């Protein structure tokens, strides 16, 4: 296949993901529980603002996933590259300045930069935007590892009990007694830097919490009458788990997933700072913060690099946290404090 065609096929990925999410939401909205929850969410002004901000991030992530093969540079260029990439300056420059910063003889800049430039002269706004896709990749992929794993093992453990429960809970106990950050840094050290490695490390350490939650819920539902009725009618165990118990656990799972998304985004930044994060060349807020560690010690201070990365990362984590809280209130009003 020609490289151009391969790059066209890449473009289908974000569309497929978005399509799948839209299909699930529209299906869910037709069920009474989720329809009511969505109506409550729509009435909640905080949730609406949070959803709008998160939507903007999704837009940037999609724009950075749709691209084409650039024959001149022999690299893939995305919509974000085309719109926001700026020519490289010599070194630091303040936001909207027309000269470089901190040099004995400030040189004039090639262009204006809304958020200034960093030490190697790259546009800070562009770098911050490039971090969006990485954040979604890490958050999304990790959740795709964590959620099915935790659901399957939690359901089996809670529903079947006995030796299956013992075996799974032993694994959960062992993994949860290793402090997460230690296991994560050890795993990325051993496996090597990279986005997939980070997702594996975060996935291995994060599934245990959700698994415990699911197991507890499964135990609660195991002896309910609807489950007994299904059993009496001759429905198999797998079908009972998948078609009867699972739908009842979805609210818990979805709320926990939303809330853990933001902590995964934050975890990437911490791992990058510790030197076991995203490799150079991939957009990453963690690497921006890492680069900024000495910039506040300079005089005059360089604040825009750290500032942009902080705003970018908090701007995604905060709406996701707020959405998670709002979703919990909307799905189960009894939990409302």
């Amino acid at each position, binding site marked *: 296949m020609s490289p151009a065609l391969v790059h066209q096929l890449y473009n289908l990925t974000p569309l497929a993901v978005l399509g799948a999410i839209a299909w699930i939401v529209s299906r869910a909205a037709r069920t009474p529980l989720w329809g009511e929850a969505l109506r409550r969410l729509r009435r909640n002004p905080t949730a609406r603002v949070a959803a709008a901000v998160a939507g903007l991030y999704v837009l940037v992530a999609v724009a950075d996933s749709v691209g084409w093969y650039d024959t001149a540079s022999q690299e893939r260029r995305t919509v974000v590259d085309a719109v926001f990439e700026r020519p490289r300056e010599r070194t630091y420059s303040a936001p909207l300045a027309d000269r470089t910063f901190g040099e004995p003889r400030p040189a004039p800049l090639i262009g204006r930069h809304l958020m200034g430039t960093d030490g190697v002269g790259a546009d800070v706004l562009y770098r911050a935007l490039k971090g969006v896709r990485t954040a979604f990749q890490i958050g999304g992929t990790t959740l795709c590892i964590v959620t099915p794993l935790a659901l399957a093992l939690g359901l089996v453990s809670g529903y079947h009990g006995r030796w299956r429960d013992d075996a799974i809970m*032993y*694994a959960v*106990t*062992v*993994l949860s*007694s*290793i*402090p*997460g*950050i*230690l*296991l994560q*840094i*050890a*795993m990325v*050290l*051993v*496996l090597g830097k990279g986005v997939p490695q980070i997702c594996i490390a975060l996935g291995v350490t994060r599934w245990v919490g959700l698994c415990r939650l699911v197991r507890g819920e499964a135990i609660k539902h195991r002896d309910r009458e609807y489950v007994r009725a299904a059993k009496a009618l001759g429905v198999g165990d797998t079908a009972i788990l998948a078609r009867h118990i699972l739908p009842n656990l979805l609210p818990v799972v979805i709320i926990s997933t939303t809330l853990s998304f*933001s902590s995964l985004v*934050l975890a990437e*930044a*911490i791992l990058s*700072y*510790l*030197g*076991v994060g995203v490799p150079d060349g991939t957009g990453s*807020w*963690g690497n921006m*913060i*890492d680069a*900024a*560690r000495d910039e*506040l*010690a300079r005089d005059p*201070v360089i604040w825009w690099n*750290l500032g942009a*990365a*902080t705003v970018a*990362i*908090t701007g995604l*984590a*905060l709406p996701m*946290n*707020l959405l998670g*809280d709002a979703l919990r209130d909307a799905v189960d009003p009894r939990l409302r*404090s």
Partner: protein
Amino acid sequence: MLRFVVRRLLQAIPTVLGVLAVTWFLFFGTVSAETIARRNLSSKNPTQEQIQGWIKDHGYDAPPLVQLRRGTLDLLRFRFGTSDSTKEDILGRIRQGAGPSMAVAGTIFVATVLGAILTAVVAAAFRGTYVDKTVTVLCVVGLSVVYTVYVIAGQYFLAKQFRYGPVWGFDAAHGIWKYIVVPSLIGFSAGVAIEIRLYRTFLLDEIGQDYVRTARAKGVPETSVLLRHVLRNALVPILTNTVAVVPGLILGGLLLENFFGIPGLGSYLVDALAANDFAVVRAMVFLGTLLYIVGLILTDIAYAIADPRVRLD
């Protein structure tokens, strides 16, 4: 009580064995000795002799059984061996680092738990009012900021601008307090939000109970209801959740010690990460896990003492 403690200790044995299996698999099962050697050798394209020499020199050529012993029995007996990158004795370095680390982590732990209880009580006392709402909003915002930003911004404002303490360094001879004030303040701010949220829910759960209504009905003043009835009962879940602060303390140790030049276990681990020092990371993961397991056991014992409903046998 003794029986309960002994049984709880025995229960920890399979867990520790499992942890040993996980770390052993991670460090000896997923990467080859050659990969470790390549990562440690500074030259970009090491020759085969250099690689073999490094593997031999650092004991990675040992037969599988010796590797297994190193990954299990030696760790259990705290024989951590020597560092891959500096050849230093790991246990000796851990002994030196434990003091400074405990000083920082201990201060943050006490400050976080006490500060969170105080704030949560205030929020619960004014529940539903703007005081409560402000606390809740601040907590969500606090949760959404990366730890590293707290560290960098905290050092700039607290140490550099307000001069509450030195920006860098640690000298036990000149009184350690001076050096740990700023790191502790930062660790406290970064970790307190999630605890406040948790403790507030615990308090609100108790406020909804029947005995609170009874206390109010018999004329107990609201302050007394809150402090003597609600808080005392909420302390049981709060107490058992204090151990949940520990992973945050470990993370704080890694970032704060590295950033403020405190020669503790955290900065030792961060340096080892930068140097690709597998032996040190392996020892530290095991030690950190052991400490956490001890914390979990202590919590269970504290829970059994605090809550008479917990049956001991």
